[in-house]
């Protein structure tokens, strides 16, 4: 049941091939040479285009705990040919693939939904994929997120961020599910609208990195985790009882009351979530609920 053309006798449906007396190896060789020729022409063409292009100057933070010459943090310069619409992520990929394959950064979706590539670009937290080079002054300085431990180059340790996210019981809870098997819980359009922006969080960590309070208090829940709590606390489907417990969680010593409303998280959030407002709203809810139980 072989499908191979290793045995030329099986090539009955191709008249040209039948007439062909070359061996398999020779034909492979010719085909390969042609493919290589096409490849060489393409490379030359690219090189010409690259030489003509305007270049962007990047200064990129480098560090590797085990590679000689990179154990002391340093900045490397890359001059990347500019193309219309090029983002910081595109420029980093170019620098990696063309200049230094060891240049390391997280990235995946390229469309601001996976939250992998939050970076510190020209002194501000941004997603690399969402930031146009043309909006930036040169040289473009690219660093890992501040206030987080650097693993290598632009990669930071996210464990602490994940721990904080997971500490607020970040999952839906209710005591009151509808009876019927295919019966959904009802939610008003207004309520869905109220939680909408809070559900957009992509866990990129930009907010936490921008927050002075989080920098000074390692146990502070941080804007993203509080926003996650907000997403559930304000969801009318969970009910009052669950909401009370959620308010207790965010009222803890390192919870909402630590926030000094500096708005830095709100300013850097790539999904435009009004984080500070959400924190303030939870403070108000907590006060209301405390008064009620007095």
């Amino acid at each position, binding site marked *: 049941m072989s*499908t191979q053309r*290793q045995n030329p006798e099986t090539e009955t449906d*191709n008249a040209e091939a039948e007439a062909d007396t070359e061996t398999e190896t020779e034909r492979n060789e010719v085909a390969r040479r042609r493919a290589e020729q096409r490849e060489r022409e393409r490379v030359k063409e690219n090189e010409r285009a690259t030489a003509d292009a305007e270049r962007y100057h990047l200064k990129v933070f480098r560090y590797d705990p085990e*590679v000689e010459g990179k154990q002391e943090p340093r900045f490397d310069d890359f001059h990347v040919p500019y193309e219309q619409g090029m983002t910081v992520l595109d420029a980093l990929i170019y620098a990696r693939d063309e200049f230094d394959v060891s240049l390391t950064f997280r990235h995946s979706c390229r469309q601001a939904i996976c939250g992998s590539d939050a970076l510190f670009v020209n002194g501000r937290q941004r997603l690399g994929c969402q930031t146009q080079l043309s909006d930036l002054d040169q040289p473009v300085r690219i660093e890992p997120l501040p206030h987080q431990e650097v693993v290598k180059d632009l990669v930071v340790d996210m464990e602490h961020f994940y721990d904080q996210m997971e500490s607020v019981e*970040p999952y839906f809870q209710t005591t009151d599910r509808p009876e019927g098997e295919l019966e959904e819980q009802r939610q008003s359009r207004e309520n869905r609208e109220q939680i909408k922006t809070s559900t957009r969080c992509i866990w990129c960590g930009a907010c936490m990195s921008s927050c002075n309070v989080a920098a000074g208090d390692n146990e502070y829940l941080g804007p993203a985790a509080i926003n996650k709590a907000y997403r559930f606390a304000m969801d009318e489907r*969970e009910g009052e009882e669950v909401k009370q417990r959620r308010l207790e969680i965010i009222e803890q010593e390192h919870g909402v009351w630590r926030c000094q409303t500096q708005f830095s998280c709100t300013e850097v959030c790539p999904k435009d979530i009004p984080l500070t407002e959400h924190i303030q709203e939870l403070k108000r809810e907590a006060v209301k609920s405390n008064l009620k139980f007095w």
Partner: protein
Amino acid sequence: MHEYDVIVVGAGGAGLRSAIAAQEAGADVAMVTKLHPVRSHTGAAEGGINAALRDGDDWEMHAYDTMKGSDYLADAPAVEALTQESPEEVIQLEHWGMAFSRDDDGRVSQRPFGGLSFPRTTYAGAETGHHLLHTLYEQVVKRGIEVFDEWYVLNLATTDDADPGERSCHGVVAYETATGEVEAFRARDGVILATGGLGQVYDHTTNAVANTGDGVAMAYRAGVPVEDMEMIQFHPTTLPSTGVLISEGVRGEGGILYNDDGERFLFERGYANNDGELASRDVVSRAELTEVNEGRGIEDEYVHLDMRHLGEERIVDRLENILHLAEDFEGVDGLEEPMPVKPGQHYAMGGIETDEFGQTCVDGLYAVGECACASVHGANRLGGNALPELIVFGKRAGRHVAGEDLGDPQVTAGWTPDAEAASVDTPVSLGEPWATRGDAVADGGATADTATATTVVERTLERERERVERLRDRDEGTQHADIRAAVQRTMTENVNVFREESALKEALVDIHAARERYRDVYVADPSSTYNTELIQTIETRNLLDIAEMITVGALARDEFRGAHWRKEHQERKDDEWLKHTMVSWSDGSPEIWYKPAVLRGEAKTYEPKERSY
């Protein structure tokens, strides 16, 4: 050695849902994923989840639409499972708190989508996948399921019996990105592959950089057949400069496509006289490219998608995310001007052959989601049918691997008596005739009768450690990025929407050349800390196999069905081709064979009809 009942590879929608199901059925589960779960590409799905939830709709209509959409290449038992169970799974998501868009009465909203006879696409704005992914991950956190994030699975630990149907899978070997450690994960009950898409084999794709088809390539090299790999979906509305997806929801809500002459070409040029913009994706993509090829494209490249007439209120309510994407990635304000769009690689209908419980022919090995082929999409997937596949088959596989009795499958995995051997005329030899280091055979490296499950895993671990060292030790050679770029280019040029024999053959030659260059590949970064170059180098190896499977399948299928258009063969050949293209890897060379599509459902047979929209 880590040891669990069930190992799930990949933590997107399908992986998360199967882990939850297996754990609920009593299994001790761990997930191993090369990203953190919330980074998975399920999060980029926009449009929605098809489910027959409302009066006037039923699963039979959904099944009919899906079979028609598949151009009669899907297997009816799998399609009926999808459409019967999707409603309960959608309600399950709602009960887990997913933030669906709502109607005035507080129930979840549904909208029209391409190829559907009823507006049954349930959605959460134009960010349905994001909400689904986060909701499922929340449930994994709640249950305390262990997640090994940023661990890259290198290979499966499988016995190497001569007949793949006799083989069994006992675990995986994975590389920890942060430290460079290679470790073994033994799975007592089974391994579920949920590794998602393979779009990185093309250079204009909606897929993430991480979508490199790892699961498909690993299963293939372990002897599992891949099915209908030539069936690649090109989504009609992607942004020209980046490939970022603009949801079908835009057309579902009433968005219109125009050519450079301002014609609503789907109607005015007769591509889809009834459904227009809401014809199925393959039809719309071909129409757009035909317009461009005949000189009516804008800047000879794209067409316009206009949603301005829907009004700001409706757009912000239902499609807000699209405004952000168009602005951020194309610099266009969708409220003020039409958006430029062109077809881009989006989805693989084919994949690892499974039955409708996710089982492959290898004992203990399952596959679910985009990497799998049950088959529910056949030759063309309908918009809104991918997300229900993740949750329905994720749940089924999770329950099955944990030992629940789900009955006998109607779709059989592996070689069956009605399968038919075949041959295809290729310009170069396929696979790896030089048989490098056993990559070409099943991955156990031990014979079944002498090896215990543990020794199979241990030997796989040894071999993978050697492989990683070999890549790192070499000081010079070819860099993977050049090879990957060459593969992407030839696939995009030659194995795209329009396919012809000479171009397909040229692609095979290019892939062969790339494969030869890969023999000299090396990793320049000496670091064991977060060495992404090493991981990408191994991914590129997987892409070579994927590219070849797609192309050889495309060459074999000499007809026009669904997404697969052949210049020399302009008709659907039902007498000859109501069958799946199967490719399996044996001793270094791919073999091709066919298996009949199962058109017989629970109560009726889906007779092929002319497919017009």
